[in-house]
């Protein structure tokens, strides 16, 4: 697991209040109750602070799964 994955997992566990092994790439915003709009905002802002990046509004709306978040994050941090 890369450093990026570890940091992201850490944020996800705290935002969603679940264990690491419960976090799967196909976890979906619309079927997972703790992932409400407030949690989404919190998640985005924590990821932005941690990786010193920022998301466009369209990107924020288009993140529907953990896999989506990982994909866009990797694009942003890779040089």
């Amino acid at each position, binding site marked *: 697991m890369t450093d990026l994955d570890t940091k992201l997992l850490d944020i996800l566990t705290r*935002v969603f209040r679940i264990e690491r092994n419960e976090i799967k790439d196909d976890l979906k915003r619309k079927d997972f109750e703790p992932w409400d709009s407030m949690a989404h*905002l*919190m998640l985005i802002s924590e990821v932005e602070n941690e990786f010193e990046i920022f998301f466009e509004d369209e990107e*924020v709306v288009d993140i529907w799964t953990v896999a989506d978040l990982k994909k866009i994050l990797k694009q942003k941090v890779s040089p």
Partner: protein
Amino acid sequence: MKEILESVRKDPSYLNLWSAYKKIQALNLPAPEDETNTIRLAVIGSTTLEPLAACFDVKTRLEGFHVETFVGGFNTYRQEVLDKTSDLYKIKPDVVVLSVDAWSILDKMFLANFVRMSIKERQAVQKELAESVLSVISNLESNTSSLILVNNFVVPVFTPFGIVDNKQKVGMKRFFEGANEILADKLEKSSRVFLVDLDNLASSFGKSRITNWNSWYRGSIPFSDDFTPILADEYIRYVLALKGRTKKCIVLDLDNTLWGGIIGEDGIEGIKLGNTAPGIEYVEFQRSLLSLYNRGIILAVCSKNNPDDALRVFREHPSQVLKEEHFAALRINWQNKAANIEELAKEINIGLDSMVFLDDNPIERAQVSQVHPEVLVVDMPKNPRLYREMIENLNVFDVLSLTSEDMARGEMYVGKRKRTELEQSATSIEDFLRTLELEVRINEVTDFDTPRVVQLIGKTNQFNLTTRRYTNAEVSEFRKSNDAIVYSMAVHDKFGDEGVVGVAIVKKKDHDWWIDSFLMSCRVIGRSVETAFLAKIVADARKAHATRIIGEYVPTKKNPPASDLYQRHGFGMPVTSDDNVTNWILNLDEHSIDVPEWIELTEE
């Protein structure tokens, strides 16, 4: 629950606080049984306030309280406040935070048009802005009995006038400062509404960092990750003051704490203490301590030294700010500090949990905090130039109102020390009391004395028979009621005036007078004034043709000094109920209580 709180105590970051809040909410805890330790919070305002409420909620729990929190909707505070059936009122909040962003009230074109507005227009808008918040406050005040915390407006950093902003009669900054001043003026006299100086807090933190603009534009979250917990800390100060969890006494080490160097080795000429460097940092630290003393914080000394060496500094060093007369008690010896602190607490007659210990030596600190975890042992900076900043940022001495008794407390302790000296020379306790020339004034509490009475109710722990913490509003209700009497007692002796130091609340039911509350400041314990107080209540009850007086007693960890009050005044037939209240009965046909002959009682 414990687990959740422990993990956030270790790392109280924004995300952890929020995460803990969400976890606790998901537990769906039943309503707590212990009402006295429960606080109901409400956070309402013009923006998304859930994160702020989450931090406030969890930080209040970290202080050991059970918490229930209501978070208002986005910009729905007016409806919540005006609708008496709204959820805001359903939880019966003890504390309401009102956080209104000035820009949510001002016209959308306010910033754009400000320069073009006339002075008169600006002044009119400024007044409207303040009044808009004030009207919400006045509704809140009449619909609740809670403590109301109102954020003032953040004075913006940007002004279209640039560097000549303050060359305008009402520039941008003065516009907001003026609005804040109107709020402060209107709220100054209120005992329930407190204006939280958000602008000052934001300045101290750095105004450019109080908002994360991404979160603001995405979700109207007004405060950044780093600033939100700091604002919550500011609210906690009010909660602790409301609940009487205030520190009252600072215990000070001497060498390398009050002055630089070691008096036993460096001598009076060698220690660092003076009005220029080196040593000015200690003088300024002492001046800060003296400012706290002057508003009623008790000072004491706990130092490993030869007493003569140390006392010489107090008496002879020209730059020493704090003198012997500023200390309520001194322990300068070679005994271990934990034992000394215990003795100091006894001598001053305060609880260990109202003491703060300042010592440069980490080993002494560790020993004291290990033996007395209830003492606040401050992690002192290594650098003495930071001592002053440390004491000024400690924020543990807050009270909701400062009375004249507070201001004069220092002098009262000098009187106490002299009294102790007299007591030691007197041959019997009656002999001692007779020479004190005690005068006691007992009457129904007046408007003037009410703040002090509420303060005593809020913070008296030791000589307090029931420890019922009534708010200002509740005390006012008792005063208005025909079935209750609120008494206050003031004490004076030849060494000084103690002011109002006793409170009793009597409730009348048929021919019984119930003493619902009876409490006395620890300063006057041992002077038999409680006997005079009971005698007065008995006399009044007789006049009103009551047949019995029933004294209630609820034991706590701290009130053993009061446990035998009723027994030693002839009350009998104690009956303890399931909720741990013991009722003692005095039959007025059979018993009486007299004012001790050495006390002169005045009634008004």
